[in-house]
């Protein structure tokens, strides 16, 4: 890294200090995760194997991925159309709407959990009337709702930026060629913002899988990965919880890498 900086220009002290801080930041993230993974593999490989073979662990990790996927799917159908409206139209109160949609990002997760429990609990505004048909408390719908709440802003914002990057003139051109709005959207605007939306979906999914606070309040059972890690940590300590953590991170990282690789060929057609 130093070599490339030297090649382009003289190494100034500010650049040097900032580069050093970059290194610190990089090591902070990389060492924390890799140390956990390698320590587990080197110290207690058998523990990791046992974890992989443990049905409770596997099903909790699967539940994390599956509930995260459902939350992302719902986020797509809610967030992408919302993003289109926010990208294309101005209306009174728009900035208020945008700020409120972003609130889940800044709300402490346990607060979000309490709020969700109030609304979706058996006496709640939505949970009450729906009680005969769908259970949120300690059930998959509760997990999905909690994941959706904390992660949907990523989808909306990413989709909005994607749609904004598509010149409205392209849509106009499509329409004057005979396309009704929905066809112009489907054949021109959507494909041109696909990469933004995919990145939004990955962020949404990642955020959903990592959620613990909101989920645990509305649904301790069935246990998702993070809940199981926490549960094992409280009952049995580090040695019982770490293999699950390592497994969870290995599985999610490999999925993200695969998606990244598969989508690398998608071109970006930003206006500038």
């Amino acid at each position, binding site marked *: 890294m130093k070599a490339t900086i030297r090649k382009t220009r003289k190494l100034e002290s500010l650049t040097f200090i900032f580069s050093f801080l970059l290194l610190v930041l990089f090591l902070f993230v990389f060492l924390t995760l890799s140390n956990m993974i390698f320590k587990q593999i080197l110290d207690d490989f058998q523990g990791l194997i046992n974890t992989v073979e443990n049905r409770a662990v596997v099903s909790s990790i699967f539940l994390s991925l599956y509930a995260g996927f459902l939350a992302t799917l719902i986020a797509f159908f809610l967030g992408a159309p919302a993003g289109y409206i926010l990208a294309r139209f101005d209306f009174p109160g728009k900035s208020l709407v945008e700020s409120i949609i972003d609130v889940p990002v800044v709300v402490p997760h346990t607060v979000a959990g309490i709020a969700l429990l109030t609304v979706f609990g058996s006496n709640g505004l939505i949970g009450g009337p729906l009680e005969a048909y769908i259970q949120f408390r300690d059930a998959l719908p509760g997990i999905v709702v909690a994941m959706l709440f904390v992660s949907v802003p990523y989808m909306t914002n990413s989709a909005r930026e994607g749609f904004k990057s598509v010149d409205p003139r392209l849509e*106009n051109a*499509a329409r*004057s*060629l*005979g396309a009704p709005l929905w066809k112009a959207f489907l054949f*021109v605007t959507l494909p*041109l913002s696909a990469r933004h939306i995919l990145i939004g979906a990955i962020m949404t999914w990642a955020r959903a899988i990592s959620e613990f606070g909101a989920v645990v309040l509305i649904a301790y059972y069935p246990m998702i990965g993070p809940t199981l890690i926490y549960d094992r940590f409280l009952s049995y300590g580090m040695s019982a919880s770490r293999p699950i953590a390592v497994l969870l991170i290995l599985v999610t990282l490999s999925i993200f890498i695969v998606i990244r690789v598969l989508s690398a060929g998608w071109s970006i057609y930003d206006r500038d």
Partner: protein
Amino acid sequence: MIEIESLSRKWKNFTLDNLSLKVESGEYFVILGPTGAGKTLFLELIAGFHSPDSGKIRIGGKEVTHLPPEKHDLAFVYQDYSLFPHMSVKKNIEFGMRMKKIRSQEKLLETAKDLRISHLLDRYPLTLSGGEQQRVALARALVTDPKILLLDEPLSALDPRTQESARELLSTIHKKDKLTVLHITHDQTEARIMADRIAIIMDGKLMQVGIPEEIFEKPVDSRVASFVGFENMLNGRVISVDRGVLRIEAGKINIEASGNLEVGSQVHAFLRPENIVLSKTSTQSSIRNSLHGTVIEVWMLGALVRVKVDCGALLSVLITRQSAEEMGILPGVMVYAQFKASSVHVLR
């Protein structure tokens, strides 16, 4: 045929104000106006991308004012061509055909051949030159046989040589397909060469409609006059009229102009810089106006030279570089600025 009746539309701080216009079938109609005059907004209203606040638009006799753009049944080509970057040239051209359910590979190939893009069909828009992109955009617009073609500054993004061939191409298309073309531009030369008729739009208002000769020789208004190249304007009063020649007192100088107005009328007299001749001596000739003055400034503009002469009023004059050198035109030199009475365009 496009009929526009008292069209108005507010957009941000800008207003398009009560525009009425009729473009005949098969006409090559140019809308000319300075940048920011509302030309593109006007064209987008006709195409249906925006709704007007009031007024009516009829295309081929059918009212389309509040119909969505796909029902306006016209082809639109933007200044930046707006090709779909994620589709090949062929897919771009097929887009309109797919939307209008026209399945004819022959038609596609024929259009591509007419526009000399057959060799580009498998390429992607971002890999094409400006001229190529424009021909693809035209092919995409024309392949569905529209009756009306709207062009938003079609030549301004091209280099001068490509511009020339694009102009020829547009004329050919217009004649061959008997298209009604509505072309907007800020370039007077372009308007003059291409147009059957011209409309001048300034600040959201329609100023004048007419054939090119009328627009460029007889502008109806002082702002139109200065926009179409009458750079010299003298304000004055008619002091005598004799057999179609007006004598006008403008400040310290008197000039003669052809026209018929009452004595005492307050007038503006307009004069193009290229219609003024500079000479060292005041020769006897049919030229009615010969004003003695001093050269103030000289600018080189390539083959031409712009000279500012103070002869009691400031006149801007355009002469060739050759004559400027032969006469030794430099600041401080005394010259006669001469122009015909018939070159002076008089407006009340």
